[in-house]
Structure formats: C-alpha cells, structure tokens
C-alpha cells in the first residue's frame, strides 16, 4: 500500500465484518413509470437512498383468466427495482413495496422477492447536496 497520504484510503476503524447484514428486495414492475415512483416513495417515506432500477424484457407469469398476454414471445418491457435495506427494516419495506404494487401483483405482471445479503456497506450522501429537480 502506498504511503502517500493522498493515495491512501482513510482508516475509519472498520472492517468488512463491521457492517450490518441486510436484505436485497427486488421488485419487477411494468415499464410505465412505476419504477421511478417507487424509488421516490422509498426516499420520501423511508429515507432509503439505496434503490435503483434497470429495464428488462419480461416473459411469462401467471395471468388472470382472460388476461391479455401470458405470452412468451418477444417479451414485455419491464423494470426491475432493487433496494438494499438493513435486516431490521426489511419487513416494513417489503410490505410497503408489496402494497404499492399489489394491483400489479393481482394482474400477474409483477413480482417482488427478497434475499439475504451477508455484507452491506453504508451509503450516505454528502451534507448539503440538494435534491434533483424535475425538468
């Protein structure tokens, strides 16, 4: 490791094992703006900054009788929202997201699942950073 103080990471007295365990909650929703809405809601109501989303193609899924597309053809535009939470808040956030997308769950074109993370780092924004403004 370099002795140059400018190229050395600050010693914060922590190791990887000092960080709390957490959960990764993943939510698959239609690509209709809902993903951004969920991320904003997680920030405003739960002060969670560790959410992001990406777009994907969704295939299959159980559909209500008479539903339009249980097709496995070219796929449906979907968004995957992921959020990392501490163990202690996972239940609350999972239920919150479940409630937010419940109508989609009933329509068969959404799924939400939760898995365990063995190591999680903290994420904080610098003090004084303003919220992004809508254009």
């Amino acid at each position: 490791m370099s002795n140059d103080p400018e190229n050395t990471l600050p010693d914060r007295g922590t190791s990887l094992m000092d960080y709390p365990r957490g959960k990764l909650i993943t939510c698959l929703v239609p690509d209709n703006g809902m993903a951004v809405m969920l991320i904003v809601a997680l920030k405003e109501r739960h002060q969670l900054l560790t959410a992001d989303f990406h777009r994907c193609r969704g295939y299959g899924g159980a559909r209500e009788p008479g539903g339009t597309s249980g097709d496995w053809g070219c796929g449906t535009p979907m968004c995957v929202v992921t959020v990392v939470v501490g163990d202690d808040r996972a239940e609350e956030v999972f239920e919150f997201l479940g409630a937010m997308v419940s109508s989609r769950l009933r329509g068969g074109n959404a799924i939400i699942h939760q898995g365990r993370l063995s190591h999680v780092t903290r994420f904080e924004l610098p003090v004084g950073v303003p919220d992004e403004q809508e254009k």
Partner: protein
Amino acid sequence: MTTSERTITFLTDVQLITCIVQSGLGDIIVKAAREAGAQGATIFFARGSGVRERLGVLGVAVEVEKEVVNIVVASDQMEAVFDHVYLTGQLDTPGMGFMYVTPLEKAATYIPKEVVDRLEQ
C-alpha cells in the same frame, strides 16, 4: 375486491436462477427454462468483462455484450430448470456464460385463485 380486502400471499421455498450469456442467447435460455417448467423470466443487457480474446484456432470471438437472465423458480423445480438451462445454453463450453442460484427468503406475485384454494386445502 376492495383495498382493505387485499392480502399478499407470500411464497417461500423459492430461488432465483441468474444466467449470464452472450448477447442474443438470452431467448434460448428463457425457452429452456420454460421447457423445464419455469413460469417466468426476465432478460436485461449488460457488459461483460473477462474473456475477450479470440479463442482457439477457429478464432471464435466472445461477445463483450451480455444478456442476464433471471428466473424465479420453486426450490423443488430448481435443479431441473438449472440442469436444462445449463445443457441447452451449452454453458460447459468455455466462454458461453455462467449461472448461479440465489436462495430467496420470500416472494409475492399473482397466484390464480384456484391455486391458492388448492394450497389452502
């Protein structure tokens, strides 16, 4: 059904199969998963790193662009889906891709009423 009557049925004993393959092969993986009994899958694009060099005397280039396929399956289906996807995707060929399984604690999605009724009996 009103909002207050809504309930979420949690699924347990589910696992997430993730398969990372060369761009353009995602649909083959999804088809294989379906054949093995999976109920759904998603595909998204990614950039891979690692093997970029040309392989062997045939000069087969390994695409840097990748497709990531996620498949949520019941635990008792996992091995069947995993094996079929592995073999169909020819993941035993160097450079074709790799896959792994993540245990999930719980999941929720739409479950047809007749299925819920059957499970509750």
